[in-house]
């Protein structure tokens, strides 16, 4: 256990030795001069106490500096933690945005597919003639048909009329012929009847 802590201590000391070998040496020098000052007989020199005080002040100063550096490190750590959580949040929101965008893409692809299907159908439909035009053509044809059937009816009626008239004419002629024949026959009969009477 003692070896471990010694190692740790040595390692820490070697690491923390950022200030050069100054700090440690200064503390040792201060201690040595303090013990010398305590053990020195009689009055010490004036400069001695001042020197000791100045070294003490220097030590305090460097200690204050390291304390501040320590505080600063702590605050930096906090800052980094904050940035870290911030970045994590950004990552998750970016993930979500990516998923959203992927869904959007799928939707847009579906829409595009529908549009293309529509276009393809429209192309085929365009090849067929317009419905209004065909309707108009149909109407015109209907009218023509009606007119023609009208004309046909008229002609038929005329034909019927002429037929009847001819029929009447022919039947009157026949009757006349018949009556003429009858008259002739009756005349002949009369004549033949009269002549034998005359002869007697």
């Amino acid at each position, binding site marked *: 256990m003692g070896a471990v802590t010694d190692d740790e201590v040595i390692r820490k000391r070697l690491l923390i030795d950022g200030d050069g070998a100054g700090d440690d040496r200064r503390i040792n020098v201060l201690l040595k001069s303090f013990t010398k000052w305590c053990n020195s007989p009689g009055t010490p020199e004036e400069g001695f106490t001042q020197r000791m005080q100045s070294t003490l002040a220097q030590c305090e100063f460097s200690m204050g500096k390291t304390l501040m550096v320590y505080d600063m490190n702590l605050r930096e750590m906090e800052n980094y933690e904050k940035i870290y959580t911030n970045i994590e949040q950004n990552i998750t929101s970016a993930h979500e945005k990516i998923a959203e965008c992927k869904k959007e893409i799928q939707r847009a692809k579906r829409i595009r597919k529908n549009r293309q299907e529509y*276009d393809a159908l429209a192309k085929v439909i365009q090849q067929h003639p317009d419905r209004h035009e065909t309707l108009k053509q149909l109407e015109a044809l209907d009218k023509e048909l009606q007119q023609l059937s009208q004309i046909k009816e008229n002609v038929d009626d005329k034909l019927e009329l002429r037929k009847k008239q001819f029929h009447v004419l022919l039947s009157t002629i026949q009757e006349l012929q018949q009556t003429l024949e009858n008259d002739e026959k009756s005349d002949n009969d009369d004549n033949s009847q009269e002549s034998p009477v005359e002869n007697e």
Partner: protein
Amino acid sequence: MDPVELLHMSVFSQSFSPCGRFLAAGNNYGEIALFSLSAALSPDATALSQKPVLTFTAHEGPIFSLLSTDCFLLSTGNGEISAWSWTELIKKNVKPLWTKRPNYKSSLEIPEINSMAVQSRDNSLVIGGGDNNVHILDLEHGVFKSVLQGHTDYVHCVSVREREAEVLSGSEDGAVRIWDSRTGQSVHCIEVYKYESCARPQFGKWISCLTTDSDWMLCGGGPSLSLWHLRSLSPTSIFPLTGCQRQAAFHQDMILAAGDGAFVSHCRLGGEVKAQIPCSLQSVNTLQLNANSAEHQVLTVAGSSDHIDVFTNLSYKAFSLSF
């Protein structure tokens, strides 16, 4: 497998597992190889992860069609259909669950089965094969429900129109027939090669790829790949792709088509070819998109080679799996 066999290998069919982590591919030697997609797509994939985790001989003849339902893998070969359980296959147990053979009229030659499709409405399997007929197998009871007769030459591809419960079949005789699956009668018969805009007499009249999106249908083969509106039975767009397309698929707002030619064509519904992405195969027989898994959404393309190209992003080929 020795190099000569690998050189002459063609992969005819692929299917993804229901969990989306495995790909099964069938080749012309009657073997099915199972590839682990999660291993091949993981960041620390090695060359070994692009080899199959399991290869076994499923049939004596080439496997022209593979289909996955939610727990089975159905494979066709030598005129029969075998069903394998995906969970058993993942555990490397290669015993088929059942093997069935449709009723063929002639017993002299055994016609091959070219294509299968599942009708989820009544849980039946539609099979198109070399005997010019489309057979429907009820997966619940395992009996063949009906036979749709009408084609005069073998059936290349079948597809199912879920909403209207219709089956579409494209065949070598150039006709795409639409059958009502309940009555078994042919509702429409579209002879694609008779339409001047689609016909390519130099290639013939056979229809080799058929896929439907309920309102629209893509068909191609001898005639150019064309998009048809099924309500009006009229071709709306013709795609100016050289070569005969063997497989086409609707994907979001695009059409993916592949066939002769070492590329996968991306086309828009309007009829223009947006892009042609090269792949390492000389000609492509099958194209599959993994819709079963969210993180392994890849397009795999296989054909006249022992390699299967995997596209993680549709715009470029990422790597190849090999038998």
